[in-house]
């Protein structure tokens, strides 16, 4: 039993790394722009299909698609920002979320029409590889995704904390008007925040393609997890989202061990409701920074 629990915790921590890569992008976008990107999961879905078709066409591992998928998704994000997001930056939050909801509906169902609802996965010797450490078995692609996610998240944190660009982004996030008065080009910061948020997914997609199968509505699964994580971490809070990713993933994987049937996915949502009710500012307590 102890081994099973240990195994669940390790799997959860590895999964948490992947969640963190997806969720810090969402929370960054929200922190800077005050917009909940409802289409975040669909951007990931697009990246995963791109990875899948790239790897199929060139008979490569999923990771080889990274140099194409990352800039491609970033560019897609920039186009979407200019066409859809920028025009509604000043609109009511309700309208912003409805617009992005509409966009996610379009992307998800266009994928359904184009690629059919069939689940697809990339399998290779690497994606099946496992490491054994005593009683614990670790899947190699999960370990790779975990390691890469940590590096990327740390890099983003460094970017936000230690560079001039990061200072501008944080300034715009904490007070748009004052930042603008200080000569910061807030429009440009918005674009960057949105681009980085979507760009994170460009890294995540090739990393998780060997772990998850892909279906057109996979975005819904990830966006729900991401909402939970972002709220748990305190909306707009980068470190909060990072930590919450692990809490959610470990809860989910321990739940799979102890809860009946396939009811474990309920746990993150229970957590979500409890946090919204009792600690809406998030676990770390500080509001968006």
């Amino acid at each position, binding site marked *: 039993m102890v081994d099973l629990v240990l195994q669940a915790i390790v799997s959860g921590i590895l999964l948490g790394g992947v969640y963190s890569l997806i969720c810090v992008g969402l929370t960054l976008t929200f922190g800077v722009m005050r917009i909940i990107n409802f289409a975040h999961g669909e951007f990931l879905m697009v990246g995963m299909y791109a990875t899948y078709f790239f790897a199929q066409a060139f008979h490569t591992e999923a990771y080889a698609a990274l140099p194409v998928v990352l800039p491609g998704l970033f560019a897609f994000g920039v186009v979407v920002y200019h066409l859809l997001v920028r025009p509604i930056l000043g609109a009511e939050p309700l309208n912003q979320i409805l617009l992005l909801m509409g966009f996610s509906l379009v992307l998800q169902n266009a994928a359904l029409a184009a690629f059919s609802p069939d689940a697809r996965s990339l399998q290779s010797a690497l994606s099946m590889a496992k490491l054994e450490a005593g009683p614990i078995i670790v899947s190699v692609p999960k370990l790779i995704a975990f390691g890469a996610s940590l590096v990327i998240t740390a890099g983003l944190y460094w970017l936000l904390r230690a560079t001039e660009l990061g200072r501008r982004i944080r300034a715009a996030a904490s007070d748009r008007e004052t930042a603008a008065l200080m000569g910061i080009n807030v429009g440009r910061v918005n674009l960057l925040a949105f681009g980085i948020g979507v760009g994170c997914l460009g890294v995540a997609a090739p990393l998780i393609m060997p772990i998850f199968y892909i279906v057109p509505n996979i975005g819904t699964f990830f966006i729900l997890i991401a909402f939970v994580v972002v709220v748990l971490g305190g909306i707009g809070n980068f470190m909060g989202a990072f930590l919450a990713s692990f809490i959610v993933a470990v809860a989910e994987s321990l739940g799979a061990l102890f809860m009946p049937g396939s009811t474990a996915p309920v746990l993150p949502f229970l957590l979500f409701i409890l946090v*919204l009710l009792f600690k809406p500012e998030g676990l770390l307590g500080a509001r968006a920074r």
Partner: protein
Amino acid sequence: MAVTVAAAALLPFALGGHQTHVMIQILMAAYLGYCWNVLGGFAGQLSFGHALFMAVGAYSSTLLLLGAGVSPWIGMIAGGFLAAALGVFIGYLSFRYGIRGTYFGLVTLAFAEIARNVALNWNAIGGAMGLYIPIQSNDVWNLKFVDKAGYYHVVLGFLLLALGVTAWLERSRIGHCLLAIRENEDAARALGVDVMRGKLLATAISAFMTALGGTLYAHYVTFIDPHTLLNMNMAIEIMIYAIVGGIGTLWGPLLGAAVLVPLAEVMRASLGKSYAGIHLVVYGAVLMAIVMFAPDGLVGLLRRFGARARGAGMPALSPSARS
């Protein structure tokens, strides 16, 4: 008004089976739009989880019918009260802690997700396999009809009721309180509006009506399962008719449904079954276009054109005054 209703009631006798099917879909969509509109449009509390209330209604009446032979007319009332109680519970939890707007939407979504996962694993209510409602003969008491005209008339009746509720809300004190809450909650409270009571009442009415719609849906489709009922697309479909038509308006949901459903039907007919989600692509695109170019919905658009046609300076006639 009476002439329009009579004409609508006679319509299925002039239409073919498929056209009647499309008409039923329009009426059903409009009905659900009105249900959502009570909470989302009047009280301004966006629910992304209305599929939950629909599922509660569908499951309650179907289980009562299959398990105990209870008429769905009684079952839907039971489902309605259950959904209303659930809605008040969710609403009370959220509103008590000042959760509103988008966050309230996310809470309702989380509850719907929990319900989906529970329903999938709960074998006594059909689990992932779902429930079938067998239909052999016309039986009004058990809400079973062999031909579509029967369903058409039932759904039309419910739509008229929902229109009535909306018209009542527009005129009543409680409706004005809800609008005040939507426009500015703090100001409404300062003026003595019981904000909590207003929101909970709107949630209860909306959830109750939506659950009735769930029973109608179950008996028309004759099959329910967690995957089709409790998913996000269902929740978005329930919202979209009211939003596209005009949030919080008397004619918005009907107008939205009358435009969107046939549009989806045309897309499906012209592109064939191979493109499964194509109607939702169209819904998404229309939703985006409305948000960007006509935030007041089709009703607002018509008013604007109406005002322009009558010349500048003339007050626009509200659509409700025109009919």
